[in-house]
């Protein structure tokens, strides 16, 4: 016991304990044998262990041979990923065992990692989806999250844009909140992680990803479970020969789609027209009145100037090996990805080491160290006047790489216009680096106290340091006015965790009990510093020496600490292996809430494995039939720390006395001490149906979630001195259905399997603040708000005027409603007069006429994949799809504006003229551009798509010759990502979400276009 206490102490200090070795002893004999598959070929890598002897195991060699010490009457367990686990009782001593393993066909037999434990899929009561390593590594995206897209039902993957290293979010069952986070909880090897885009993970390190969806599965994570839980399990060492694997690829990325734009001649015609109709004195006459001379000039397509073919390469070396006492696995990796836009790139380096050591008969230690460095370089393209905009609207008559005004002057044209900076300069010159250092150290001691009773003591630390650096020189648009603009921001996160669990597993006759109880304590600290300066006489040092600027930005800094204390437990009782009941409970105490400190989150589930009933024996084709029903409460604690405090801080604008800046301190936020957790009540019913030995396996789930006490900023009368206060005032509900179909179509030498999944969900707002049935959200500088959250409506609702075509003639003009801000005329857009101040159409288009015009969340989405293998060849493809989601294409309104000095899409030439009446493209009229500010259904497009996300062909070289050069395996592969996209969307990419949130989905404001990626890779195992 002394030893245990000592170890407890060590775990608290987060020290890695030196592993001690103790050999098992006993009066036993060696069992030898050979293992083969159904065709009689030897199987290597089979794990052989003696049941109930934790540290007694071995692995079969390349000839399928093994030997292990076991006593008479003990049971040997033979397990392998691809085969059904087999148990064998040793009846004598010195037995020779020759065993034939059956290839496992059913994922129902696979072990699934759940919160604080693992169990076979067939024993689950909850809803859990799994994505395997072999599917994950097919992705060549830096983020693990992207690799999960289309692979699991109920899991939607949303990325803001296609920039290398861009944010990618996962939403499980449409989240649970309105304004608090909808991100799931990420657990890596038992330790909560920072989550986000998971860019600090090397996807080659991942063994499997489990997505916990319903309350029975997630309630063990209590106050953080409402948005689902994603459990990431990394590769750990296996007993057996030491092996080293290299995986590397080179990829070429290409702009997926180019928009046709006007050439110089068309540009001149366009500019000529808008300068004269009506006369626009801001455009120099001399330039545009002789436009036909431009027909000889060359044309610049800025898309060709700003986008490029970009390379990407990745190298990963991993190793694994071990004996009965110590097992290690580790990896190092490097990823260098250039973006398709100039001067954008993403670099990442990771290292990871996992050791599992048997210290003695009772104690095992597992320790993981992971480190990563990532760096995102380059300028964003997004924005109303962003570079993606310039790529389409840049003036085609001027060559890239020179200053517009210089060019104009050299051609005898007066300088002018606000398009003065060459867009390529705005990409190439800014020095923007977003860097993250990440480190994690996790260690746990597993102590076997008695048969079936284990104590696990775990401690971990996560560290992340993000540095944002930018410098915009005076030649860039952003730095011009400030005469050089440098920023340096620093964010530091340190998280500490101690978690202790006691688990118990026992079989009594027909009854089986699995139980776990635990206690957890975690604390995280966030600090930030923002600094910057402007007005640089000497630019050479950029952000590396802020003192070179003569005007300093007011620095900001802050620190917050949050803590969570939890008690939790789960009991699963199975009777006769047919009836399973699970109950979980978690109590979470959070530092964020002073009064309602503790939240309690219970859940329960039952499952009935009908296929094991006697009467089912008459239907032998049904191999699995299981019904599941679960119900439970989970929470969302994603409220910012200190929200309950009324706080004093410095005034946002600086106080001044004379020529001195002085500090004024005022109330900056009103706190409500009454705040508490958001709570989600979820009911789930599911069925698992397996036919023909589970070669056809269908999993279907239907659920209903009601989230209440959602944290919202309740508007407060401004005479209070505040605009709003955070309160628990919202309710929403989510209903959904999911279906996953996995089939093994052919299972001989030619193997063919298919996975298909589809998810439907809908979230509806039930309640907001008293006296408030809606609020607007998603505001951009030049636009009014784009989205509405409204009681009775779905989340993700777009809001604006209803587009009603163009005004084609004087009669239509006379009949058209007037607009409160913009004069309408023939050839311009008109909007429907829906209502007025008295609830009736009033002939004026104003705030009363805005209504729901679309929804950015899909009606359904999912994935469809097929895997083929024949001899050494493997071929697979994955389609992802989304149906019924709208995209608010803000550029659709911005592009056709008749602006001096701008080109545009060539479609502008099919414009309204008296001879060409139509409904889409308005007249060219430089005085009629303010109109683009109106959010209307004109901008809403169907964003449904079917995308060939991933297609891969691989060949495994497997000849005797390899052995001679001590190579176990060589695999070569070619992959294409985003090769085909079927969509009616007219922008670059329907998979876009400027705001990256579930309540404001699908805004396209010039997102970085997603590229087509062609990859060639090599995988060698030594």
């Amino acid at each position: 016991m002394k030893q245990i206490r000592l170890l407890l102490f060590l775990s608290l200090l987060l020290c890695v304990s030196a592993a001690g070795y103790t050999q098992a002893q006993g009066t036993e004999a060696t069992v030898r044998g050979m293992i083969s598959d159904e065709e009689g070929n030897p199987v290597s890598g089979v794990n052989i262990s003696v049941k109930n002897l934790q540290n007694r195991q071995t692995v079969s060699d390349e000839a399928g041979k093994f030997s292990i010490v076991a006593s008479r009457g003990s049971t040997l367990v033979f397990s392998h990923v691809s085969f059904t686990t087999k148990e064998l009782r040793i009846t004598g001593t010195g037995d020779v065992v020759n065993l034939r393993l059956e290839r496992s066909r059913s994922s129902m037999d696979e072990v699934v990692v759940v919160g604080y434990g693992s169990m076979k899929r067939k024993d689950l009561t909850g809803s859990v989806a799994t994505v395997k390593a072999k599917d994950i590594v097919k992705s060549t995206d830096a983020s693990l999250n992207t690799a999960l897209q289309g692979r699991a039902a109920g899991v939607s993957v949303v990325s803001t844009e296609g920039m290398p290293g861009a944010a990618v979010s996962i939403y499980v069952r449409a989240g649970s909140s309105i304004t608090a986070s909808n991100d799931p909880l990420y657990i890596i090897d038992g330790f909560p992680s920072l989550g986000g885009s998971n860019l600090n993970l090397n996807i080659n390190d991942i063994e499997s990803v489990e997505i916990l969806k319903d309350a029975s599965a997630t309630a063990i994570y209590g106050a953080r479970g409402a948005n689902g839980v994603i459990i990431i399990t990394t590769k750990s060492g296996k007993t057996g020969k030491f092996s080293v694997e290299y995986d590397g690829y080179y990829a070429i990325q290409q702009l997926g789609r180019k928009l046709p734009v006007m050439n110089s001649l068309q540009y001149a015609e366009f500019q000529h027209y808008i300068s004269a109709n009506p006369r626009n004195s801001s455009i120099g006459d001399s330039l545009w009145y002789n436009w036909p001379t431009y027909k000889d000039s060359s044309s610049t397509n800025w898309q060709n100037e700003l986008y490029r073919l970009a390379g990407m390469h990745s190298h990963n070396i991993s190793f694994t090996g071990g004996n009965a006492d110590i097992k290690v696995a580790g990896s190092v990796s490097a990823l260098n990805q250039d973006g398709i836009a100039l001067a954008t790139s993403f670099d990442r380096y990771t290292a990871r080491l996992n050791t599992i050591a048997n210290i003695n008969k009772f104690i095992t230690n597992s320790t993981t160290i992971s480190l990563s460095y990532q760096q995102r370089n380059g300028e964003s393209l997004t924005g109303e006047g962003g570079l993606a905009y310039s790529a389409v609207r840049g003036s085609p008559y001027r060559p890239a790489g020179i200053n517009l005004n210089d060019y104009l002057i050299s051609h005898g044209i007066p300088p002018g216009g606000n398009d003065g900076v060459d867009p390529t300069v705005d990409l190439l010159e800014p020095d923007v680096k977003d860097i993250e250092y990440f480190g994690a150290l996790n260690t746990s001691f597993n102590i076997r106290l008695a048969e079936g009773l284990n104590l696990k003591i775990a401690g971990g630390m996560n560290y992340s340091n993000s540095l944002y650096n930018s410098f915009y020189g005076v030649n860039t648009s952003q730095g011009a006015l400030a005469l050089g603009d440098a920023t340096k921001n620093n964010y530091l996160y340190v998280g500490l965790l101690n978690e202790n669990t006691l688990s118990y597993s026992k079989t009594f006759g027909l009854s089986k009990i699995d139980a776990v109880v635990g206690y957890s304590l975690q604390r995280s600290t966030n600090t930030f510093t923002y600094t910057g300066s402007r007005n640089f006489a000497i630019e050479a040092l950029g952000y590396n020496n802020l003192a070179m600027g003569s005007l300093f930005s007011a620095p900001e800094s802050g620190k917050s600490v949050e803590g969570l204390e939890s008690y939790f437990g789960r009991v699963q009782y199975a009777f006769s292996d047919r009836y399973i009941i699970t109950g979980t409970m978690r109590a979470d105490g959070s530092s964020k809430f002073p009064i309602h400190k503790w939240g309690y989150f219970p859940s329960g589930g039952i499952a009935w494995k009908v296929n094991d009933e006697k009467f089912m024996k008459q239907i032998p084709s049904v191999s699995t039939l299981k019904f599941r029903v679960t119900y439970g409460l989970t929470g969302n604690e994603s409220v910012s720390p200190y929200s309950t405090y009324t706080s004093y801080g410095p005034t946002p604008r600086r106080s001044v006395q004379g020529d001195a800046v002085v500090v004024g301190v005022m109330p900056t936020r009103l706190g409500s001490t009454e705040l508490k957790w958001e709570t989600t009540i979820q009911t789930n019913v599911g069925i698992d149906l397996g036919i023909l030995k589970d070669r056809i396996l269908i999993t279907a789930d239907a659920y209903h979630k009601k989230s209440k006490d959602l944290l919202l900023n309740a508007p407060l009368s401004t005479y209070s001195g505040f605009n709003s206060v955070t309160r628990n005032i919202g309710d929403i509900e989510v209903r959904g259905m999911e279906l996953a179909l996995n089939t093994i179509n052919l299972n001989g030498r030619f193997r063919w399997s298919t996975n298909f999944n589809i998810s439907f969900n809908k979230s509806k707002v039930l309640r907001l603040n008293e006296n408030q049935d809606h609020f607007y959200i998603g505001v951009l500088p030049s636009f009014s708000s784009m989205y509405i959250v409204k009681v009775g409506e779905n989340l993700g609702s777009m809001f604006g005027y209803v587009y009603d075509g163009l005004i084609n003639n004087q009669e239509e003009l006379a009949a058209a409603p007037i607009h409160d801000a913009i004069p309408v005329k023939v050839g311009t857009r008109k909007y429907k007069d829906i209502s007025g101040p008295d609830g009736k159409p009033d002939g004026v288009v104003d705030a009363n006429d805005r209504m729901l015009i679309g929804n950015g969340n899909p009606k359904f989405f999912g994935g469809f994949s097929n895997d083929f293998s024949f001899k050494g060849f493997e071929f697979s493809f994955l389609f992802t799809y989304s149906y019924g989601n709208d995209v608010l294409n803000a550029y659709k309104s911005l592009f056709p504006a008749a602006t001096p000095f701008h080109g545009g899409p060539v479609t502008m030439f099919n414009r309204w003229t008296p001879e060409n009446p139509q409904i889409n493209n308005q007249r060219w009229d430089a005085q009629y551009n303010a109109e683009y500010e109106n959010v209307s259904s004109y901008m809403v497009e169907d964003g449904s798509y079917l995308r060939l996300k991933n297609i891969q062909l691989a060949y495994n070289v497997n000849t005797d010759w390899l052995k001679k050069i001590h190579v176990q395996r060589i695999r070569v592969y070619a992959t294409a990502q985003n090769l085909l996209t079927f969509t009616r969307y007219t922008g670059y990419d329907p998979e876009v979400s400027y705001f990256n949130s579930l309540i404001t989905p699908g805004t396209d404001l010039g997102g970085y276009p997603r590229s087509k990626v062609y990859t060639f890779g090599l995988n060698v195992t030594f």
Partner: protein
Amino acid sequence: MKKIIWAIFCILLISPGCKKVITEVPYSFLTPQNFPTSADEADAALIACYTTLKGPDGYGTWEYVGGLWMNAQNDVTFTFSGWAGFTSPTHGFEEDWWADFWRGINAANNLIAALEMRDATKDTWVIEKLAEARAIRAYFYHDLATLYGDLPFRTKPTTEIALKLPRTPVQVIYDSIIIPDLEFADGKLPVRASPAARISAGAVKCIKADVYMKLAGWRRSSQGEMVPGDPKYWALARDAAAGVLKMEDDGVYALDPEYSGVFTKLSTDQPTNEVIFDLEFTKGSRAGSLFPYMYGAEGGADPDKGGGQNSLRVIPEWLRTQDNRDERFKWNIADYAIYEGWERTPLPGDTTSWGIATFQKIYPSKGYWQTNVTNFPFYRLSEAKLMYAEAANEANGGPTPEAYKQINEVRYRARPAAHKTDGTILPDLAGLNQQQFREAIMNERSMEFIMEGKRRLDLIRWGIFKQKIESLKLFEADLASVGGFNERFYLWSLPVGDMTQNEWQNNAGF
């Protein structure tokens, strides 16, 4: 079993300090529980109250500029959006002004509550800080009352998470908050001329004079009636202004020798003893000023090039009544446009495009707009003089010698140097009856404070707003286009959010 007990014991053993982990400790902000605790901290809280006028963030001064803009539509200056800007239900500015002033009132209420908790006999600094906090509150309430009419009654820090209050009549706000606050503050604040960013002994008297002037004159009620003032306030206004003039005699305040001198100093962060209370800016991030940019003469939208937006213009009919040799004419009226590099381009004779350059003459030729330091004056000594002269004329039934002395000092200062002694330009006034003197004051204020946001409110308190506006030829077409003189020109609209949450009736006309 023994092992299980051991295990549980171990778990308990390694779970120390849980209470601490789930107790929140603030690191980067202060709370009402620990702030303010000293005179210096109280000063920081006071300073913040003034800064609320600069708006919540970013381009905050736009808001103050925007509010001035609303008041700049009068019989002397007009804005390029004209009267139509007043007839739309929201202009944006009034919501921001409302919020900014109330932020200031809440900040003051927080401080007042904290100071009143302290034992003033032990902490001797408390009384002075309390006086300043109450003076600030009075000033903010006074501005709100003149712009919005009836107001919610708030004298305690906001702690409520939901609010629904009625509007309290303006007279009650004056009688129960503004006047008691000013009476409390008067005599308790330090005598100080510069910097004038904080309310000093003289500023309190100026605010008091202004408050009494407004109470003595006409006001427009929230219900849409012209309410006559109580003449008893004239004497109070006169005496309050006299208190400021006493400080001039004591050498605290003095008129700058040149009218241009005041604005040159305001624009360059130099001290001047003429300014009694102002809003101050200086170089630095989020410390700079935006007035010159908004209100300068035309020069493109780029402040870099020294131009402003020329969004305010002079009314030619009024300008023709002014002597163009008046130093103030020369300083204030921009008969030119500024393009890059300080080149002044004379504008054609079309005088409706003449702007006002009061705050635009001194402007850095290059650099970020945040490098602009221009301070904006709320009260100058010349206003104390003209308030005194006006109040004395009203209280005494005609001009007194002292009233003549004060107005003539303001006029003397505006004379060109060559005529200071001969007095042929802006001659000393004498021999006027009460009405003539009243009109002289009205005229004097028009030029003296052309860019200081006073005129529209002056016209209302004199009861001549509608008549003046309707008499101007320039406005004929503009007024016709909005259906004639509108009730909405008097008081501003209340913010829609506050109206709906509190179920208020908006001001008459909306």
